[in-house]
């Protein structure tokens, strides 16, 4: 009897463990499969201010067709956009040029022609429509000093997508 009870408990434990593993495998599969809830982001274009004289603040609009940064987002549903924005562009030799972003320097454009502007300094929630695509444009402003050293200055801009998977 004791032995039987112990065996029954052991089978029960194995069955429960199997159920747990099956559930784990199911949800892992659900998360890994392209069910329409996966998201991806691709860099399409860099943010390029071009040749700027010292002392002249220069803006790039997020609607600029050649100089604004562009990301393509693919997926479905609500997506939280979070930018990691540098506050300066740096030269290899050490000097830097201040870089600033304003409330209208972010732009989301959908394939159907709809667009919104947003402040890239704060996270923004957008919804990817039935097309499964949206384009994130980023402008900005450089503010070189009057004695800014000539040369090329660079920085990386990271766009992070958070998709709740709801």
């Amino acid at each position: 009897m004791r032995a039987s009870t112990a065996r029954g408990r052991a089978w029960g434990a194995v069955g429960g463990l199997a159920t747990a593993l099956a559930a784990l495998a199911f949800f892992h599969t659900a998360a890994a499969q392209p069910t329409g809830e996966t998201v991806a982001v691709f860099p399409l274009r860099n943010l390029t201010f071009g040749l700027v004289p010292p002392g002249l603040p220069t803006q790039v609009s997020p609607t600029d067709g050649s100089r604004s940064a562009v990301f393509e987002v693919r997926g479905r549903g609500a997506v939280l956009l979070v930018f990691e924005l540098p506050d300066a562009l740096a030269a290899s030799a050490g000097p830097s040029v201040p870089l600033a972003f304003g409330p209208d320097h972010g732009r989301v454009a959908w394939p159907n022609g709809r667009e919104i502007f947003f402040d890239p300094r704060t996270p923004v929630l957008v919804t990817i429509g039935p097309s499964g695509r949206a384009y994130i444009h980023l402008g900005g402003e450089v503010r070189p000093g009057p004695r800014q050293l000539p040369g090329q200055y660079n920085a990386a801009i990271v766009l992070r997508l958070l998709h709740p998977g709801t």
Partner: protein
Amino acid sequence: MRRTVWALGLAALALPVALRAQTATATVNASVTIAPTIAATTTSDLSFGTIPYGGGATLDVTGTAGNGQTFGVVKIDYNANVSVAVASANGGDLKNGTNSIAVTYACGYSTNPSNTTGGASSSVACNALPNLTTTAGTAATSYLKIGGSIASGANTQKPFGTYTDVLTVTVSYVP
């Protein structure tokens, strides 16, 4: 044992929330090129002087101008590396109406602003000038000296008169 299994079961149920929340990242580059200060000022025109019929002329930018001759001189101010290009409007000829005399232009850089003393350390073809270099932000000045040569006999069977060309000097920032 049963508690352990339940604990695993709860962990498995809680896990999907973490797995289904996805993140994705992409990176672009932001760049700006700060322009240098560049100025090019013509301080002297190039003159080979008067050439006798059947004769020639030479203006060596490493030497001294002859009687009645002057170097072409362009003062170049810069605070970053620059390239210098010289273009002839007549494709390397001096012209007087439809008549032309071939010239071989030669150029060099000098620290001497004189239009009769070349002072260049070397003479090169004007389409093969090396870049002028300086530490970024450090102001510098160089004088482009333009001379050259007209071969002996190049003016035979040419009507007398003044033959001219226009040389355009372009100074460009080298990032």
